[in-house]
């Protein structure tokens, strides 16, 4: 497990090379996710949101880099830790927040909650809560693209804890056998709930499984959104060219507990702080200040704008109506 550094690292090249505009908008997108989740966390502790709430804070660069690497029409499938992808891919923050509140105006009408964000128009194909069971589903999306001869790539994300479960194996087996246009991305945030990698992985390098499936691999520690965009972009292109699937392992870290109920006592001493120094959001912020000449004041304004958006999202969720009682019978079957 790549241990973190004492002092902030020099800015990653991929970040340094990016334009001011790209860096600023990426920073804004990452900040939107963080502020959204901070607002959600507050609402949760105030009892306005219930159920499970899994925060993405610390991993935002992955969703933002992914969104930038996709083409319109491409599909993203992920786990219950799905807020980041929704916001990065363009879902409305108000609808996202309303879903957490279980309101009729939510992304899926309040029936799904935090774990089941789906926004088809934006390319977000969910939002699944049974570990690993979305991987065959994603392989099915890729199968359909091939069947219909559509130029669509499916990206499916999973946690480090999901790689041992059977459905992951079966999905990768079929993707390798059928050379499906799909990218399997492991967001290795070092823990599955309270369990560190050392108690879940027989081999530290998850991509060592690739050769068994005949699929390409890539593995790296996430430094910034542009790096993610480039590296995932290469895997997406490979899939688009008809060269089959790739298994990508991203080393990342979550700054919050597994879910709101987890105090995360299992971290090593200083572990959290050292990883905070690698926070891609902070890196982007440094780049804007040091390399692109933005001022603290400008960044404060940007932050205010984002915070206002999220305050409005919360207000929207608050004032939205709960679903009509009759709606619980909706969508059990397709109403023809």
């Amino acid at each position, binding site marked *: 497990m790549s241990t973190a550094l004492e002092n902030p690292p020099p800015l990653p090249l991929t970040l340094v090379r990016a334009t001011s505009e790209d860096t600023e908008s990426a920073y804004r997108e990452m900040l939107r996710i963080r502020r959204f989740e901070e607002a959600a966390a507050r609402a949760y502790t105030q009892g306005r949101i219930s159920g499970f709430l899994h925060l993405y804070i610390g991993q935002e660069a992955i969703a933002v880099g992914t969104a930038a690497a996709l083409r319109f029409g491409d599909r993203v499938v992920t786990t219950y830790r799905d807020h980041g992808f929704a916001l990065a891919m363009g879902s409305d923050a108000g609808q996202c927040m309303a879903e957490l509140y279980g309101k009729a105006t939510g992304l899926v009408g309040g029936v799904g909650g935090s774990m089941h964000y789906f926004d088809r128009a934006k390319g977000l194909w969910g939002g699944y809560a049974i570990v690993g*069971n979305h991987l065959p589903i994603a392989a099915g999306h890729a199968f359909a693209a091939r069947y*219909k001869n559509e130029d669509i790539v499916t990206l499916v994300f999973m946690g480090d804890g999901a790689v041992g479960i059977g459905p992951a194996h079966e999905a990768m087996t079929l993707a390798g056998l059928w050379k499906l246009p799909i990218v399997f991305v492991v967001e290795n945030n070092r823990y599955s709930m309270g369990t560190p990698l050392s108690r879940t992985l027989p081999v530290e390098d998850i991509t060592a499984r690739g050769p068994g499936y005949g699929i390409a691999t890539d593995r790296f520690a996430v430094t910034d959104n542009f790096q993610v965009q480039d590296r995932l972009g290469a895997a997406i292109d490979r899939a688009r060219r008809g060269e089959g699937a790739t298994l990508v392992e991203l080393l990342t870290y979550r700054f919050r507990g597994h879910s709101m109920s987890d105090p995360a006592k299992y971290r090593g001493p200083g572990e959290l702080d050292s990883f905070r120094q690698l926070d891609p959001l902070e890196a982007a912020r440094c780049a804007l200040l040091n390399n692109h000449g933005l001022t603290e004041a400008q960044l404060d304004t940007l932050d205010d704008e984002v915070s206002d958006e999220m305050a409005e999202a919360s207000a929207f969720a608050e004032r939205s109506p709960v679903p009509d009682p009759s709606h619980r019978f909706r*969508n059990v079957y397709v109403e023809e």
Partner: protein
Amino acid sequence: MPTIQIREAIRDAMRDEMRRDPNVYLMGEEVGHYNGAYKCSDGLLEEFGERRVVDTPIVETGFAGVGIGSAMCGLRPIIEFMTFNFSAVAFDQIINNAAKIHHMTGGQFKVPIVFRGPNAAAHMLGSTHSQAFDAIYGGIPGLKVVSVATPYDAKGLLKSAIRDENPVVFFESELMYSNKGEVPEEEYLIPIGLADIKRSGKDVTLITWGQGVQLSLNAAELAQSDGIDVEVIDLRTLRPMDEGAILRSVRKTHRAVVAFHGWPFASVGSHIVDLIQREAFDDLDAPVLKECYDDIPMAYAENLENLTIPTPERVYASIRSVAYADH
């Protein structure tokens, strides 16, 4: 009308629908080059090719999930389980993805998929290969569940299942694939959710489906021979259930027996008994009885298997009992 086997009726239904809709495809183990473990897809690979008749490795969770994921994209997969016993390793995909995706996405996605294959006991296959999944899938909201007993019903209902916008679990039987029956040349559909009176009678209502249908007709014959006129209702669909057909008959006969292949506890049979006593309590002249498997794993030995599975004689005894023929 030509007379064909159930396996041919199933094949014809799939062929018709695949010709009609390019989004319909068949996937499973041995469905293509082998023409199906029970030859239900004979000739389909030849006609439609490997793109639409897809042989898979032995990964039920994998190909069930691929089917579901492809259905979300507008395809209409037919997933064959070599037998439904093997759906147990794909259970999560069926109950948590197929059954719930339309609901949990707020209606953004549909899952028009058919899971089909033989269900319940065949002959001397032992405990793991002789299980009925009627109650297990019948109990899951979001699924539709069909169980057929004749070539005519098999073709008409499978075509409807393939066109249905919802996930449909479609039960067949190794023991019935060779059963013959008349099937019209011309196109027809049988709506899901409609029972069929396979024999009309006035004294006792015998409710059944799947492998229970022939069993029940035989039992009805025995009863006829001593003057009890039995009405045999083939449910054909377990979910949604044609409650009206059941209740209409019971209100006429005031007596009912449920006969099926499966275990008794929390069974579809229990559900039907519950329904009848709740909705027709004052019409009942006798308790409703069930005839089904003994509540035990199926043994391989032929004599033990035959003792575990309901016989016409056993069903007949229950008919006599509800008719108080022995008083």
